[in-house]
């Protein structure tokens, strides 16, 4: 099987890895790089829990091949905090207690972070639209949506 050498940046760090073509980006993140914040659940694009940013846009990492990210930049939940300082979206989730079991939280943080940076003043509908494909089986959506709207507000003030 033709292993491929891929070069990419993840959370600001340059990596060169050799991968088999049938490995997904999700596998690369969790198993090769041991970044376990990104969750593995349905592995068929339904639950959204493996969402990461690929070149600044959210993707379901279970539906991206590792070989496809050659030359790309990836951001996972581990890369949100900078120099020990939490990102606005993370602070807001803590303030709102926007998690129950916490399994879906990394995906919501990533999409929330993406949304408020793209649209600093999202309406409730726009937040719901962006979160459509991420499932929280504790069904704690209200506080998650509140936390994202509030994070945007705090970012605008800062």
């Amino acid at each position: 099987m033709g292993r491929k050498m891929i070069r990419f940046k993840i959370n600001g760090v340059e990596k060169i890895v050799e991968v088999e073509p049938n490995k997904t980006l999700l596998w690369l993140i969790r198993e090769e790089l041991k970044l376990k914040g990104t969750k593995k659940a349905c592995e068929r694009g339904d639950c959204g829990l493996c969402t990461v940013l690929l070149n600044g846009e959210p993707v379901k990492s279970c539906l991206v091949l590792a070989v496809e990210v050659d030359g790309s930049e990836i951001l996972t939940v581990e890369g949100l905090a900078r120099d020990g300082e939490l990102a606005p979206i993370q602070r807001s989730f803590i303030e709102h207690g926007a998690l129950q079991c916490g399994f879906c939280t990394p995906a919501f943080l990533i999409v929330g972070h993406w949304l408020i940076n793209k649209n600093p003043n999202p309406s409730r509908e726009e937040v719901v639209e962006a979160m459509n494909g991420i499932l929280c089986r504790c069904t704690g959506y209200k506080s998650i949506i509140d936390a994202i709207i509030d994070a945007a507000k705090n970012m605008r003030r800062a």
Partner: protein
Amino acid sequence: MLPKFEYYSPATLSEALELLERYGEDAKIIAGGTDLLVSMRDRLLKPKNLIDIKKIPDLRQIEYKEGVGITIGAAVTYKDMLEHPIMEKKYRVLCEAVRTIGDIVLRNRATLVGNICNASPAADSAPPLLILDARVRIINKNDGVREVPLERFFIGVKKTILKPTEIVKEVFIPEPPTNYYGKYVKMMRVLSEDLTVVGVAGLAYRDKGELIVRLAFSSVAPTPIRVREVEEVFKKKDMPIDKKIEEAVKISSEKVSPISDVRGSAEYRLNLVKVATTRLLKELVGVV
């Protein structure tokens, strides 16, 4: 875990066609991969070779020519398509249908041409493309491009006329009628991120005063279908509009052949066809 395969990422269309010529049935094209990788994970497909077309600049193009139409390349994502300024202006009914596919994250990767090539009976992009007279441009290494109406592209559940050495280069949608009104009605079990139980797209416009109506369905036949018989009904003289709608709904419900599955029974689907078509047609003739 995915079955094993070799991965190729050609930089040009001719390289991709060369690979396809070499591997034929042992190869699959990957664009967004949002359907393909799920099928591979389920072991429904085990291609020995994957040819990634995302790095081919020619296939990432969207080109609009005023008065002619728009061409959407095989590697164009829904996201890029929806962000193209002309799409919402001229092809709103297609945008409306595409926004019901998956979620915003999925649409960052998934492609319009992929939706067509996958040929699911539930393909949401298909009904609007059918009523907009979309054409599929197919290419192989030796014969150049052939163009086929989308209506003739689908031949069965997940089956198209595409040969193993061929690739869909792009979809062409002609300039739509001026001042048409179009709408896509998608019936699903939950408010978002679900496959279609019944989908129906319609458009209406006036041609020198005469009312023209077109309808197409998804999820109610082996392939997405355009029901052309309905179009004749609306051309009839001396028939009140209410009667025409009634007649069109009756014909539609006769032309579809829904099955029972996890998302709904055949009877339920047939009833939804009547409900959705009636609602849609009333709205269309009310606006135009």
